[in-house]
């Protein structure tokens, strides 16, 4: 379901890449939060100059809503194929909302080692923060009703698109 007021994902990704280009460390690792953030990180790795090792994080084991919702049905494996200790990491996510996913991701990264720095890059910032977390690089800012969630999808040809779904579906945090 697409809404005409949603920005185009590909264009927004271009804007995000522009902001990162030249600002991000040349050897920064791009770590995407599964699944949308991971797709974005893959694309950004191609779009930014230099070598940016790629990682992906599944935050299921670090979420703060385990007691209420239990373990998610579909789990991916966190893969950080580089030395986390002392590295500059750019954490990538599709939608920044309450900030809880990012909190979980940061905790998880620290269980792999002590990074030199972590910066946050997000495609969409929809406000509504419940934790003191901000992104350094933002593709676009949007306000969306509480009962809706913004999801990033990847089309068969690899291109990305944004859609609106009723809140409570798998995406968005």
């Amino acid at each position: 379901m697409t809404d005409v007021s949603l920005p185009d994902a590909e264009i927004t990704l271009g804007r995000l890449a522009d902001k990162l280009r030249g600002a991000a460390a040349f050897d920064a690792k791009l770590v995407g939060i599964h699944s949308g953030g991971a797709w974005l990180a893959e694309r950004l790795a191609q779009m930014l100059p230099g070598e940016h090792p790629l990682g992906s994080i599944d935050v299921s084991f670090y979420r703060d809503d385990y007691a209420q919702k239990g373990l998610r049905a579909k789990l991916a494996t966190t893969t950080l194929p580089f030395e986390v200790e002392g590295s500059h990491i750019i954490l990538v996510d599709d939608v920044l909302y309450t900030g809880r996913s990012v909190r979980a991701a940061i905790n998880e990264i620290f269980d792999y080692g002590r990074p030199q720095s972590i910066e946050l890059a997000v495609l969409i910032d929809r406000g509504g923060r419940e934790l003191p977390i901000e992104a350094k690089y933002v593709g676009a800012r949007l306000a969306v009703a509480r009962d809706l969630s913004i999801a990033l999808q990847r089309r068969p040809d690899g291109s990305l698109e944004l859609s609106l779904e009723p809140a409570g579906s798998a995406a968005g945090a």
Partner: protein
Amino acid sequence: MRNPQLNADGQLQHLLTLEGLPPEVIGRILDTAVPFVSIAERDVKKVPLLRGKTVFNLFFENSTRTRTTFEIAAKRLSADVINLNIGVSSTTKGETLLDTIDNLVAMNADMFIVRHGQSGAPHLIAQHLSAANRSHIHVVNAGDGRHGHPTQGLLDLFTIRHYKRDFHGLTVAIVGDVLHSRVARSLIHGLTTLGTAEVRVIGPQTLLPTAVESLGVRVLHDMREGLVGCDVVVMLRLQNERMKGSLLPSAGEFFRHYGLTVDKLKLAKPDAIVMHPGPMNRGVEIDSAVADGRHSVILPQVTFGIAVRMAVMSILAGN
């Protein structure tokens, strides 16, 4: 009669047996174990899922191995673990099984890992908790009498899936003392549920249970015949007390007929894997050359065992 392992919403509340578990439930446990395998490879092997939860390892039967793997698994989930080694006979303590449970419940237990010498003990505990309105406390069967050892069954399934991908074309042989084996029973249930093409049990008549075919297996007494074309060979441990007396004359004779040697293994498929729940009796069920050889996945089973138990506990605690 509703499966006592599932709550009213059909979610797994206890892990008591693999019998009657839908393949999706088994599949989910195996899928959940995958990320836990890689957690074991990093420096900080913990995740915070069970932080603040108290897990009691209630072992009425001695087993340092199994108890240790559960302890490691629970600690890697950040749970507090208490080990209780209760004497074999509860009457020597004067406290009944259920009294022991009630006392631990009063100490705010969240999960019981139970190993007991009698079939049905974990079921009794789960039922007792349910009757006392304590259904939020989860019971994991770590082995009850001859009946079941579901986490072992699951880690065996995980191991097979890791090396062989799909169960539908597989021939799996389980060799040895099936009569007394909870490992065999659990594995048989798991394999048949996941659609394994053929499950064979191989052993002398004295060590095979009555009507075992009703579990969905093919019975063979000749090991050479039974190994032909196998993708997976699972060797069961032969306990000391079975090695003489009316069931078997000696360990030597058992090895002669049912021990896995390099020679016999050649009858199986060239890429067959060899498994054993441990601890092994080298020279009784299995030759050292096989145990340490290229077909053996016995050590990976141990690693997978921790991940599978972490998966079980984290799924249960979240329900």
